[in-house]
């Protein structure tokens, strides 16, 4: 029992060590250590690697590099354009603010001017009205004085007539001169 198994194990080990192509067939061995397949794998690996290298260096890598740099360029360009537009917007805002300030100043100036004009006109009108009022009042005063004078004379006349009539009614011949003097005396008092 012992002999065949040890023999088999020994054979397997031998096969692995020899690596003569039997190792792969013996159970438990590593097919990777079957050196007879190595030239084959080396050859086909070399073919695969050379193919991949040619594909990469001739086609794939330059293309991807171009795409990436193009994208980078587009992004940079877009950013620059955005920056420019932003600058323009700031400028436009500044111009707008300046126009607004100008308009406001102009409006203030016009308001002030108009106010001054109106004030001047007003002053003039007041002055004129004052002068008119003064003239009118002087006139009125004169008229009043005249009326007063004329009314005093009328009163004196009436008083003298009345006095003359009263005296006459007493049956006495009235002295015109004495009556006038008395009336004048009375009216003064």
């Amino acid at each position, binding site marked *: 029992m012992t002999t065949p198994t040890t023999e*088999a194990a020994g054979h397997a080990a031998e096969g692995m060590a020899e690596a003569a192509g039997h190792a792969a067939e013996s159970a438990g061995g590593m097919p990777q250590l079957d050196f007879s397949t190595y030239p*084959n*794998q080396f050859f086909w690996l070399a073919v695969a690697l050379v193919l*991949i290298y040619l594909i*990469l260096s001739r086609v794939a890598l330059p293309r*991807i590099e171009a*795409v*990436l740099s193009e*994208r980078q360029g587009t992004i940079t360009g877009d950013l620059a354009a955005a920056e420019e537009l932003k600058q323009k917007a700031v400028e436009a805002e500044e111009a707008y603010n300046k126009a607004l300030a100008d308009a406001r100043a102009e409006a203030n100036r016009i308001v002030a001017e108009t106010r001054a004009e109106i004030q001047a006109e007003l002053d003039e009108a007041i002055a004129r009205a004052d002068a008119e009022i003064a003239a009118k009042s002087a006139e009125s005063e004169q008229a009043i004085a005249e009326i007063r004078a004329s009314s005093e004379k009328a009163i004196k006349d009436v008083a003298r007539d009345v006095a003359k009539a009263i005296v006459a009614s007493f049956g006495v011949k009235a002295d015109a001169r004495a009556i006038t003097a008395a009336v004048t005396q009375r009216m003064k008092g």
Partner: protein
Amino acid sequence: MAAEAEMMEASGPAIDPMHQFTLKPLFGEGPIHWYTPTNATLWMGIAVLGVIALLVLGTRRRAIVPSHTQSVAELAYGFVYQMVKDVAGKEGVKYFPYIMTLFIFIVFANFLGLIPLSFSVTSQIAVTVMLALLVFVSVTLLGFYKHGLKFLGLFWVTQAPLALRPILAIIEVISYFVRPVSHSIRLAGNVMAGHAVIEVFASFAASALIAPIALVGIVAMFGMDVLVAFIQAYVFTILTCVYLKDALHPSH
């Protein structure tokens, strides 16, 4: 040893999670010559077609506002380009197409390997060793071409005390030559382990008792393998960038 073998025989059809990694000729039987088209050839070819579909057909419209496929292509381009620029510096950008080739091949091979019944190219140590050696040899040659013998300054740590420098130099040289080994085995190991574990879970699923657990295990492992597929491509690429940086700027 005997008990183990007995157990394996007792469990009926032997679980052989490694069988999926076997190379087979595409047409008929027979020995695999260096030119024989195999399942590995087929899946490498599909990877190349995938690269064409994504990076060439996907970008054919050169749109300023990209389509979905073009977005993914641009994302892959930007991802690797940024990685090269950040890690290897501006001078490294010259080698971007080579690094992109490695990355895109590994990514496609890894993800195609996740398709059930497919063949995972990157699980083959032959493939990852060749990739790692390509990087190692070209980076080393580039270092000597750019800096001549000054490239050896990479191993001479000038910040360290003079007495320590020879010892450090030995360590640096060893670690330099271990690079391609870790570089290749990391990728193949991760991919292989993920696939093998899925297959082990899948063989458990044949037994009705543990089938639910096995199914959950398969789903979980598959999810992790999706992550691993990308992360390992990323790790391979970023290490390539680091090695490239060492070649361009060897001084510590």
